[in-house]
């Protein structure tokens, strides 16, 4: 929103650009930015919750229930690999956006599909990880720290899942009608945001124990 103009619109009868808006940013793109700003606070709240609870069963003596700490179960090399996969999906997303901007729809479809595939791989990794944790005795309701862990990573996973659905929908739609490059770009904004959030979660949850 840095580009909000305080000056009078320079050309009172808008320029030839059919997408002219008062800020120069198109409506969908601005809406996505505003939504992502809102989402920042959603993850802010969830990350704070996890930070408050992460070592709680170990710190407070005499608590009812399991004192198991989820961080003892982390498999850092495995999660690093799925993190790498998710980060690479940002690269393929960028390739998809540039292809769309060049009007190269074949490539755009290829990279949209690749991005969706990488996202799905990440989700698969998360499901595998969750199932390992549960089999080791750390379920959603085991104690507050496991609840906070599954809530935080689960919300992120839900975002990735929605992102994959949107990527696949856009891929499908591109066979039916022409996709605007900006539509791909706006979807890309969401996808990169989800990646950045994962970088924070991976650091805070897995690396800072």
């Amino acid at each position, binding site marked *: 929103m840095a580009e*909000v*103009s*305080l*000056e*009078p*619109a320079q050309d*009172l*009868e*808008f320029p030839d650009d*059919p*997408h*002219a*808006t*008062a*800020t120069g*940013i*198109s*409506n*969908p*793109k*601005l*809406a996505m930015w*505003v*939504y992502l*700003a*809102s*989402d*920042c*606070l*959603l993850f*802010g*709240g*969830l990350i704070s*919750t996890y930070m408050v*609870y992460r070592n*709680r*069963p170990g710190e*407070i003596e005499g*608590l*009812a*229930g399991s004192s198991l700490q989820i961080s003892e179960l982390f498999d850092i090399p495995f999660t690093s690999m799925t993190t790498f996969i998710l980060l690479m999906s940002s690269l393929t997303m960028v390739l998809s956006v540039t292809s769309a901007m060049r009007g190269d729809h074949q490539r755009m479809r290829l990279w949209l599909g690749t991005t969706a595939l990488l996202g799905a791989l990440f989700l698969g990794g998360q499901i595998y990880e969750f199932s390992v944790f549960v089999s080791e005795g750390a379920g*959603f*309701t085991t*104690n*507050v720290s496991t*609840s*906070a862990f599954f*809530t935080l990573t689960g919300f992120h996973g839900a975002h990735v899942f929605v992102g994959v659905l*949107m990527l696949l*929908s*856009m891929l499908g*739609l591109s066979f*039916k*009608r*022409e996709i*605007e490059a900006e*539509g791909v770009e*706006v*979807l890309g904004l*969401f996808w990169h945001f989800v990646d950045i959030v994962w970088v924070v979660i991976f650091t805070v949850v897995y690396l800072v124990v």
Partner: protein
Amino acid sequence: MTVVSERTPLALPGGEPSAQNHLGVFTRPTATQGWKSWFTTVDHKKIGIMYGAAALFFFLVGGLEALLIRTQLAIPGSDLLSAELYNQIFTMHAVTMVFLVVMPLAAAFANYLLPLQIGARDVAFPRMNALSLWIWLLGAIFFNSSWLLGGGADGGWFAYAPNSGVAFSPSHGMDFYAVGLLIMGIASTVSAVNLTVTVLNLRTPGMTLMRMPVFTWMTFIVQVLLVFALPVITVALFLLMFDRLFGATFFDASKGGDPFLWEHLFWIFGHPEVYIMILPAFGVVSEVIPVFSRKPIFGYPFMVGSGIAIGFMGWGVWAHHMFASGMGEISVLAFSLATMFIAVPTGVKILNWCATMYGGRLRFTTAMLFSVGLVAMFTIGGLSGVSHAVAPADTQQTDTYYIVAHFHYVLFGGAVLGLFSGIYFWYPKMFGMFLGETLGKWHFWLMMIGFNLTFGPMHMLGLQGMMRRTWTYSDGYGFNTWNLVATIGAFTLAVSVTIFLVNIWASYRAHKRNPVNPGPDPWDARSLEWMIPSPTPEYNFDETVVVEEFDEFWHRKYGHDEDGRLVRIAPTEEVAQHGGATGIHLPSPSYWPLVMAVGFPLVGYGLIFNLWWALPGALLMLVAIYGWVMEPPDAPSDHHDDLEGPDPVDSTGEPAELTSGEAQASAESDDAEEADSSEFTTEEAPVG
């Protein structure tokens, strides 16, 4: 001019099937009039009116609950209501008044007025606008359906643990609270994103940020606050829901949960929420007072700046709700100071309103009376508010009737009076008829008397030590007299609200007998919405207004002579638009917002009673999303700009201007009425 029932038809050829079979089975509804059109409309004005009507209905529901509370407390030792039922009634009263009355009533004005005040044809995403209305309305009905399904929420509106836990609140009431507020939060988020984009992007040429009316500014600040505040309560409500429905222990202290976390998350949302409720009313008053003082608003940049300051500082004062929680000296000091500071921008506003009235030619219409009432009553509430900033005093006042008195002075004396002022002020613009002034003044004065009788004594009761939320009290504490006075006041308020309803009915009857159109500008007002006929035509503006200064419409009517005196330079009829425009393209109605919204309460019931029941709701939402994306963009004669093909031609035979939401003043066109052939882009962001 036209009356309500004879609206100018849309340029969209009514009744003509828009089935072009774009992508198979999806077509758009065509009705633009009659009862069906209200369910599929994407018109920001109809959506605003529906928000308002529903909010007034819930105002009566919440008011009824308030009367039950006051009847119970009228005499000591009363057993009209059981303690259990009393808990439900005060919780439902509070949640209803906050989320089902004040917020949607402000949303009604925001929807109706924002596009008009910035000179736009609609909001940025008309279908998303309809979606927010339906999600909110169905969420509100879902929330109230708890009365029939085991009892309402009973943990107080801020739902502190452990009262909100299953152990102390075993009925489904608090489940409905958590899920219902989540649903309504989604609606508010969608609406806030939409209106934020609208204000930033859809301003008419020349309408810079610092030329926007103060109402637009305050509403814009509110949308930004909503964007950032709602996700925080969303997190808190999800955690509460996981606790109650899925066996987590986030707020169960015996299992390592921290009730404090809920308090922080709730009030990080809750304090900005206070400003979310009051700033729209401040905006209304800032429109009403200049008009009826015949003076521009005093210190416009300071009005805007103090609103922004309130918006920012509102994030740094939340823990003053928690002084009694034992959170530590440093926190208490910091939040005390911040709370004292936030009184400054609010004081700036009060003084600016007084300065606007000072030396003005005042006309005490009902709208003006309500606005002046807000200035006076809110000041009392503000003063008791500053007294909360003094932590030692606040520790004594916490959870007493003193707090109840304070927030009713700011929310009833502030928000509700301001919104009533707005209703009397914009009623002619919305419905093409006045609300009666005689009954209006009865309404105002009875409301003032009743309000002060109800909530004034609560200051005394609180300082005497009467706790809030107590379901009854014993004889001999000295509470009897003031409680009886407060109950008499509550029934006086009920009478005044009844007069308001009678006024609506009587004004409608009088208008039917003798239709007199108020004309575009009945109050000799200042902002753009008064430039167009009353009631507002579907397409808002005949032609795009090019704005050159703040209070553009006023400056087109009035100038100054060489002595600096105000002189009329043009009659209103010459300046105002006449509403005969044709060929203006508007977004088509759509079924999908309503279809998608129906999915939300279904998922809600599923979460509470049986997860399988959530499945049809989720499927319905999924279908609606794809229906939404794939329905043809517009009427049959139009092509959307993401489609290939030769230059599209609209129904008038001229090349259609494919602008994105912006009305385009076509310079080449000779005929001003035909100048506007722009269209809306109804394509939303894929996440829509």
